[in-house]
């Protein structure tokens, strides 16, 4: 394969990386005055990268001698990532401009969209990686951006603390991941996923996985589990979600989660597929522990961002149930789950963005939502839809996501796992419903500042419609797309 053909397969990454460099130049010469224009140019670039997925980049096979694979699975994951990145770009400018501690321009800076674009490049590499080196470099690119974004509001001590904490913990996780990669390389003699799968299959046939390979596998999965915040590698999530600026938190909870989850699926199925019995127990433990800890941890939270952090841990647990099944249907269920999950999560964070007092300062307490149904009827209704959907209550789309993963788990004979999952989802329903109760039945708290962004209101309405019963019209299409994505891995 020639380089030109390889470059054509990586077209979305080329567009994003090249575009980011151009925008960086604009930002450097025009200064922060250009920040808003750069935001919208970045959204346009992401749209262009999404369109590029229609070409050979959507399903063109391997590029660069087996370092990168453009298949429907990667294309679907990239589509979700681009949507999430575009939404987190759209909700950023107003938020940063409102914080006027950084000067008249506020904290609005043109580097934010550039960093998000570079992060999208890293996430695209993660979901397309069929080599441990591509995996690691893509992951680090995404991680490094995440540290900067977490502490983007550098005048705010909580934001700075979040960035530092994320850096220290994530660097440790990267070290563990890298150690796992080196062990796998040492004991399978290759870093390519296909080669690893062949070597692992030989080992399994020859009387079980070697100790070195097994330790490498465990370390690799532990490193990736940190990135998707699965228990027991979740401890960073609440602090960092609380401290980061809200648009950044919304970004953390959506795009990188999809990327890391897709990476997790691809590594386990493509590279370690012959050793399914070895990793299934790890996934089952992580799934159950995440569901339970996410459910119980969220109950006592008074801060809405912390609560949503535990909610994301909880949701990742449900998605992992589909992966534990290890079947094609299971993988399709995971991808459907992530698609529905980002709609619910981004919607919730857009609502959190509306929570600000009369002076425009953000409020994050759950108590401040009291009586929202009287002051902001539409906002309260939308938030209630997201909460019911996250809880998985039937007419809403969140139920369908949970149904798919449980169905896949039962079909793979993991019915005890599905049973515990269903029981735990009742526990998590408690705190989602508590928010609905606060909004509809508690005495009104001081009203929020009136809505001033048509765009944010429109995005909230769009997300609420998508997860409402109307979203079931999209379910057949989602089923077809996720099924073709899953087929690409088997």
């Amino acid at each position, binding site marked *: 394969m020639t380089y030109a053909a390889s470059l054509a397969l990586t077209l979305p990454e080329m567009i994003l990386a090249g575009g980011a460099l151009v925008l960086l130049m604009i930002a450097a010469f025009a200064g922060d005055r250009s920040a808003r224009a750069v935001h919208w140019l970045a959204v346009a670039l992401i749209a262009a990268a999404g369109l590029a997925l229609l070409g050979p980049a959507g399903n063109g096979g391997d590029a660069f001698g087996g370092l990168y694979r453009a298949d429907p699975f990667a294309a679907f994951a990239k589509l979700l990532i681009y949507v999430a990145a575009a939404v987190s770009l759209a909700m950023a400018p107003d938020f940063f401009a409102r914080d006027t501690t950084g000067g008249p321009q506020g904290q609005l800076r043109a580097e934010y969209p550039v960093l998000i674009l570079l992060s999208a490049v890293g996430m695209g590499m993660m979901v397309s990686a069929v080599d441990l080196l591509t995996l690691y*470099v893509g992951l680090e690119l995404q991680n490094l951006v995440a540290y900067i974004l977490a502490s983007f509001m550098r005048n705010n001590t909580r934001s700075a603390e979040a960035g530092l904490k994320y850096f220290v913990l994530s660097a440790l996780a990267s070290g563990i991941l890298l150690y796992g990669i080196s062990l796998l390389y040492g004991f399978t*003699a290759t870093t390519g996923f296909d080669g690893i799968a062949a070597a692992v299959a030989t080992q399994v046939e020859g009387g079980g996985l070697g100790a070195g390979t097994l330790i490498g596998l465990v370390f690799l999965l532990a490193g990736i589990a940190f990135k998707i915040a699965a228990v027991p590698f979740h401890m960073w999530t609440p602090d960092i979600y609380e401290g980061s600026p809200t648009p950044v938190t919304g970004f953390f909870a959506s795009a990188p989660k999809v990327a890391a989850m897709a990476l997790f699926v691809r590594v386990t199925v493509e590279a370690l597929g012959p050793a399914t019995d070895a990793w299934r127990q790890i996934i089952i433990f992580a799934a159950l522990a995440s569901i339970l800890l996410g459910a119980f941890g969220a109950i006592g939270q008074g801060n809405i961002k912390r609560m949503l952090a535990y909610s994301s841990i909880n949701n990742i647990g449900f998605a992992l149930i589909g992966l534990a099944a290890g079947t094609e249907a299971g993988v399709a269920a995971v991808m459907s789950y992530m698609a529905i999950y980002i709609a619910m999560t981004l919607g919730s964070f857009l609502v959190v963005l509306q929570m600000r007092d009369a002076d425009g300062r953000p409020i994050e307490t759950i108590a401040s939502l009291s009586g929202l149904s009287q002051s902001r009827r539409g906002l309260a209704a939308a938030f209630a839809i997201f909460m019911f959907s996250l809880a998985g209550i039937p007419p809403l789309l969140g139920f369908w996501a949970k149904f798919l993963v449980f169905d896949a788990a039962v079909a793979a004979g993991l019915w005890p796992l599905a049973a515990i999952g269903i029981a735990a989802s009742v526990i998590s329903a408690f705190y989602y419903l508590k928010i609905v109760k606060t909004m509809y039945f508690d005495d009104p708290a001081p009203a929020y500042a009136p809505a001033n962004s048509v765009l944010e209101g429109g995005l909230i309405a769009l997300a609420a419609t998508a997860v409402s019963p109307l979203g079931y019209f999209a379910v057949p299409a989602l089923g077809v797309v996720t099924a073709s994505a899953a087929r690409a891995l088997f």
Partner: protein
Amino acid sequence: MIEAVAFYLFATLVIAAGALTVLVRNPVHSVLWLIVAFFNAAGLMVLVGAEFIAMLLVIVYVGAIAVLFLFVVMMLDIDFAALRAGFVRYLPLGALLALVLAAEMVFAIAAWTAGGIDLGARIAPTPAAKPNIEAVGALLYTHYLFVFEAAGLVLLVALIGAVVLTQRKRGGGRPQNAAKQIARRPEDAVRNIDAPVGEGIEL
């Protein structure tokens, strides 16, 4: 013959420099001995035919890390009396650590005599005709070009991050404005005053 002499020379010096790194009291001398140890380790690498690692040792460890250590050590305010205190208190812990290290050495030697760990073959065996720097370069710029370019993006992100997180406008600076300096004309800057004899002038 010469290889054996070189090996024993380098090996002796590595061990001696390593020991002195730990034993000398002055931390600055300690870092200097560390640099000597790195140089000799690089020599050992050359002897086993790994020139690339030898170069890396000199460039990265000696050139960057050790010099960084040296700067840090020089900036420390070290109380040399305090360094000598507490010897007896930490003796049991130190002895324990020494015991662990000794046990590790015994294991290592035993493992070595029993034969190495059975690692897989290399993904791309070094071609015999090429020096290994060339081999690494060829692989890096052909097969792994995509990852190499992405690593460049990682560095770019680090650069942007450093600017975003640390650069801020400070008031009171006096930056040079070359255009303004050149545009300044003599009549704006110079005044001719006819100073009377015996009197001061008013500026």
